[in-house]
């Protein structure tokens, strides 16, 4: 049975060129970049070349690029680091949105438990975070505002440029979690005007366990890990040189193909949405159809639990995720769909199809061909669908 992988927002297969490059350096580049000797120097040079490459691809300076263990650590450094730093100026308030990834939400929650106040701003039914709410939430004591660039569940793109400028007008630094955006839509830190930006390697055909926090020159944060003077004293710990090399290569490939891939993804996803909706009644797209990372399609199948669909698709070789953190019995819907005020019966039956570089029209046609039987079977068993309240 062929596997159809439609879970690229969770992680992606590594690009063969990235594997080849990393494999080569795993053999030869084992030096510690902090070492004085030649082997260390070689590692250092390769790492700094990678930093330079990442900086160029983002429109940043290489001194503004800090390597981390991934998107989660980057988000933690940005949100908690800026908040702790703000404390020195008696700032004890942070702002984020209700639709963030848990890396940001839980960081904010941690700050709340430790004396900070937090405002979680909402979004509209299309999944776009409200600039007005952001404006109203800003206070003189706000240490950091953080809103993601593209949502991981719906793919909806947020008005980051406007938000950054609103925050700056109030003297508040702005961070964006761009883990789902980099390599999929154009991302330029200067153009966006953000102070900090997170990204991750494994979402764009690079290795797992590597990420970046961009910190604009002059932005003050308190480091969270302490040790050696790595990463300009902002992130202690011997650098993951091989993965850094892999990340830079992966970014280079993804951003190089971005325009062409974006058009292809747009075409595939438009086909997919239309085909599923014409094959099955009462299927709804969650989030804006236009302002969306084109490779992400979040569909709600009315009256059916997402988990049952995921398992049924898996048995047919199709790998997807639920847009919801749904648990059987308790019909807990995803926090993102909740914030979008999605009908409960729809939210519990949401599935995220996220396409990638290896996704083909044939794979989507196969998916469209197996879905009706699954949904019909599950709807027959669904009391909620048979007898709507």
């Amino acid at each position: 049975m062929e596997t159809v992988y439609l879970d690229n927002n969770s992680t992606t297969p590594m690009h063969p060129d990235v594997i080849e490059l990393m494999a080569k350096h795993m053999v030869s580049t084992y030096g510690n970049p902090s070492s004085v000797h030649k082997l260390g120097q070689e590692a250092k040079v390769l790492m700094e070349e990678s930093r330079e490459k990442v900086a160029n691809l983002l429109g940043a300076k290489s001194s503004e690029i800090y390597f981390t263990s991934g998107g989660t650590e980057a988000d933690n450094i940005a949100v908690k680091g800026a908040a702790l730093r703000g404390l020195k100026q008696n700032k004890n308030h942070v702002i984020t949105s209700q639709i963030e990834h848990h890396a940001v939400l839980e960081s904010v929650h941690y700050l709340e438990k430790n004396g900070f106040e937090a405002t979680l701003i909402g979004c509209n039914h299309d999944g776009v975070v409200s600039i007005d709410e952001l404006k109203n939430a800003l206070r003189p004591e706000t240490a950091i505002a953080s809103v993601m660039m593209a949502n991981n569940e719906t793919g909806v793109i947020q008005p980051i440029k406007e938000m950054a400028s609103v925050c700056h007008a109030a003297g508040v630094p702005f961070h964006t979690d761009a883990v789902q955006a980099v390599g999929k839509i154009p991302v330029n830190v200067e153009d966006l005007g953000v102070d900090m930006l997170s990204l991750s390697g494994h979402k764009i055909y690079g290795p797992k366990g590597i990420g970046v926090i961009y910190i604009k020159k002059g932005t003050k944060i308190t480091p969270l890990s302490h040790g050696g003077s790595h990463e300009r004293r902002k992130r202690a710990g011997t650098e993951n040189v091989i993965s850094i090399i892999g990340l830079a290569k992966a970014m280079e490939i993804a951003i190089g193909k971005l325009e062409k891939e974006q058009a292809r993804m747009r075409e595939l996803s438009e086909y997919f949405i239309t085909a599923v909706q014409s094959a099955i009644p009462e299927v709804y797209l969650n989030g804006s159809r236009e302002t969306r990372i084109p490779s992400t399609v979040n569909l709600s199948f009315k009256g059916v639990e997402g988990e049952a669909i995921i398992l049924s698709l898996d048995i047919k070789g199709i790998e997807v995720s639920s847009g919801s953190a749904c648990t059987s019995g308790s019909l807990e819907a995803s926090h993102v769909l909740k914030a979008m005020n999605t009908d409960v019966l729809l939210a519990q039956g949401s599935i995220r199809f996220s396409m990638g570089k290896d996704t083909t029209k044939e794979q989507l046609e196969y998916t469209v061909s197996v879905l009706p039987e699954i949904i019909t079977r599950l709807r027959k068993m669904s009391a909620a669908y048979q007898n709507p309240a």
Partner: protein
Amino acid sequence: MNRANQDKHVLVAMSGGVDSSVALYLLHEQGYTVSGATMKLWDYKDVGGEDHARADGGCCDLNAINNARAVCDKLGVRHYVLDFSGIFRQTVIENFVSEYRRGRTPNPCVLCNTKIKWEKFLERARGIGCDYIATGHYAITGIDEATGRSFLDRGKDWTKDQAYALWGVTQDALAHTLLPLGPLTKEETRAIAAGAGLKTACVPESMEICFVADNNYERFIREYVNMEIPKGDIVTEEGKVVGEHKGIPFYTVGQRKGLGIAHPTPLYVKKIDVEANRVIVGEKQSVHASEFTVSDLNWVSKTPTVETFSGNVQIRYNHRACPAMVIPQQDNRLLVRFSDPQPAITPGQSAVVFDGDRILVGGIID
């Protein structure tokens, strides 16, 4: 390898122990298309007791899930974790606590089998297109050609005696159930697991109530209820106060140990009077009885009847079924009359009527 089985997809309920692992292995060997699934029923953060729990955790902890997944991976089949913790709490745990508070002694395994495994799990299996569910219970099921009903028999290994806890499974559910361990003994199961190199071959037996991780059900009920549980008198049948009880939920009919009474002869809990908040005790002979009624019936191998019949009746997990007359009542109950008086017929426990190895009907003791 049976080719006919290939079209049949079985979802095997895997606890992470040896029995369900071998169940999966055997069905896989028999040519079925199998997938494994581990039910997440509770979490330490909700049920407490983690500090006192066994190091290996038992079912539902991450270790168990990882073990089940490792077995599936070895056989190259899929494995899922199904979160039933919400419905488990609403049905099994809620009932466990409320029964004790009503002075009764529940059997949560029976309710879990009936309401979770053979209802919710089966429903999920059907939802993903499976034809059968399977478990590692030592019991035998099949179709009785004479009656057209699904029967349920004790497994070959009487020491395991797991048919008893399955009396509540409906006919429809039984017809979609495979129990591959029925013809095996526990030793044979372990040998198969070891021979197949299954990681779970040596996982120790879990005997306690799974969600009471530290086996301290008083601690569990106190934490769950989270309010003062009133103490009261322990009295004899004549009404003489002989001690103080620490709360109605912490006693069970037939109990002798832990009463904290100084008395020349051993005393047993005879009855729990919730209204008067009293625990009534008596001499050993006085806790024996011959007659009781049973509610919430499920007719298993026997076609429902209003006529009196005889059978061997088992009244708790470790009780040896004894001869009795079973007299159906008008209100959907059974009156059971033992040939010889039995000790500690405990309200809330399951009474199961057997004909030899075969379960005829089961219910809850009033």
